């Protein structure tokens, strides 16, 4: 049984307020929900990024639970070391309690620079949960494109001009890359908190590596109002841009099916980062994005053995 909000509200937040993330940040919503899903004490590692710099400004730390950061691309390796120490000390009887280990990284550290260390930790069967808070660009350094930036999106390194309409290529399918490692992999959204908590609980309970790719809208980078973070996450799901599904050791399952057909344009159009796509000249990009979304949804339907 997934915990209720009332139950979750009775657990202390392991991320304290007073962190310096922007107003309306999607990342801290994701982190709060994930940490509340752990039924055991939890040790956190983080890659360099918005979350890490904003929560550990010396001498202030927003972490009420053990936390470690060492560099950008090595969060999975760093936590592998922590877990190795835990295993060694447990064998020697120096530690008795059961602990969950979770690693947070943005899409830059997950899709791009940290992909190797993440893959290595998964291949070694490391028992931890890796959570990507995916805001679809390098937001910490000022909105540069990453392997997670969707086609057509403006960023400061996928500019909009006569020669191109934002990012020229599609994003990487990170959830499938991690699912191919054979453990537990899921895609979630903070708007659908029950689904996210269910997946986080499952990830913590899974005996082996688990990956959660969670959409974390960034008001600054997406050019949306700060109060719309959760709403844009929701519309990403409803438009099938961000399908909610999980893969348990190769078995795909769609965990939420949008009730009505919503064109992706409805989700894209109000976001400042896509506003150039409303021009007639950029219609082919919009069409291509929709085509890709339909293709991916149909693939997921097929993979999960469903018919519609």
């Amino acid at each position, binding site marked *: 049984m997934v915990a209720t909000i009332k139950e979750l509200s009775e657990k202390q937040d392991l991320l304290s307020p007073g962190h310096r993330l922007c107003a309306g940040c999607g990342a801290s919503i994701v982190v709060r929900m994930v940490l509340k899903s752990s039924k055991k004490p939890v040790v956190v590692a983080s890659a360099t990024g918005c979350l890490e710099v904003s929560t550990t*400004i*010396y001498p202030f730390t927003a972490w009420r639970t053990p936390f470690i950061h060492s560099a950008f691309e*090595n969060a999975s390796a760093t936590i592998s*070391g922590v877990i*190795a120490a835990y295993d060694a000390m447990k064998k020697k009887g120096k530690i008795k309690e059961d*602990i969950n280990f979770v690693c947070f990284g943005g899409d830059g550290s997950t899709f791009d620079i940290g992909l190797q260390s993440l*893959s290595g930790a998964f291949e070694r069967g490391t028992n931890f949960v890796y959570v990507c808070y995916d805001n679809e660009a390098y937001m910490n350094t000022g909105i540069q494109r990453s392997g997670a930036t969707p086609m057509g999106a403006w960023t400061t390194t996928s500019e909009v001009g006569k020669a191109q309409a934002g990012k020229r290529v599609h994003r990487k399918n990170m959830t499938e890359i991690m699912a191919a490692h054979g453990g537990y992999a899921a895609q979630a959204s903070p708007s659908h908190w029950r689904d996210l908590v269910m997946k986080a609980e499952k990830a913590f309970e899974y005996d082996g590596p688990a990956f959660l790719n969670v959409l974390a809208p960034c008001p600054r980078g997406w050019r949306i109002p700060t109060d719309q973070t959760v709403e844009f996450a929701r519309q990403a799901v409803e438009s099938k841009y961000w399908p909610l599904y999980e893969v348990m050791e190769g078995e795909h399952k769609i965990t939420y099916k949008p009730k009505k057909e919503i064109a992706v344009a409805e989700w894209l159009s109000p976001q400042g980062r896509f506003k150039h796509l409303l021009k007639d000249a950029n219609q082919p990009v919009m069409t291509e994005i929709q085509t890709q979304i339909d293709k991916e949804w149909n693939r997921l339907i097929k993979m999960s053995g469903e018919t519609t």
Partner: protein
Amino acid sequence: MSTVKAITGDAAVAEAMRSIEPDVVGVYPITPQTIIVEAYAEYVARGEVQTEFIPAESEHSAISICVGAAAAGARTMTCTSSQGLALMWEVLPIASGMRLPIVMFDVNRAISAPINIHCDHSDTMGARDTGWIQIYSENAQEAYDNFIQAVRIAEHPDVQLPTMVMMDGFVISHAIQRVEVLDDAVVKKFVGERKADYPLLDMDNPVTWGSFDGLGGWFMEFKKDQMQAIENAKRVSLEVAKDYAKISGREYGLFESYKMDDAEYAVIVINSTAGTAKTVVDTLRDRGVKAGLIKIRMYRPFPASEIVEALKNCKAVAVMDRVPGYVDIGGPLFEDVQVACYQEGVNVPLVNYIYGLGGRDILTSHIESVYSDLEKIAKTGKVATPVTYLGIKE
């Protein structure tokens, strides 16, 4: 107490590691360090050690694993070489900045390009100012002894810094030598248990490791504190050496002075070339030439005043760097010795030789030529060529 074995340098390091039996080893294979990794993997497979052995997917991850494990409170080791150390580079100052007493063995090998698997010191010389303690070893015995002592130096409360121990690739790492190996129990008692500061896995006292410290923070104070800690390593290493002498009969200083008491002509050298050079010193002494040798053991911290004290009465001194300096003022060891002499107001003529790059043989005849150069310099009082590439093909 000890057993004499005929083993390679790499095997000697693996023996030391087995006796220490760290909690965590994170490694990635690279020639010529591989024998150490392979041997340790065998100990693990045979159940001879309880170490969590993590074969990482890169050296960057191997050292990052060590960072995580050391912060968690575990005794942690790794070993590498050449490109592997280069790939670790980003994490080296992180490990020292976080004050994590990780102990690493680096088997010295040239840095590409061209790719070359043989010995020179460009790998660790490139990491000399990353806040790690650096200890160099002439042969397998020293590599063994230094590696065991490194644990105590690194973890000492006044130090708390990562430490790397070196020996020359192939000529030492793959050559079978006589090594006195201590009993496991003796080594274990010598290194003791690690007492970690702020262990991450103390769930009752949650701590934050790897914080952000920007403008208006304490960055400079942290760095100053680190500087003091690495300076402390000089004193601590000598204390540890005294304790080590009690269990092994071998005592080490910051550097070795060979026939330096009345030496007029001295060569300063690092690692295995010291062995070759000692033979030359002996030959020259037989001929009545007052030759001497300084072999660097602890290079970081740099025993500047101590070295100057040892060479101040010489008529001329040659510093041998096994690394291309890429500056015409000479290699890193030469620069350090020059600065040290200048600071102490000692004006001995100094000359630099770059040698042995990519495993190029260094022969007794090469070193003899260095000493005869020194005699000429002493006579004229002039250093005509400050930097010479020794043993270069014409």
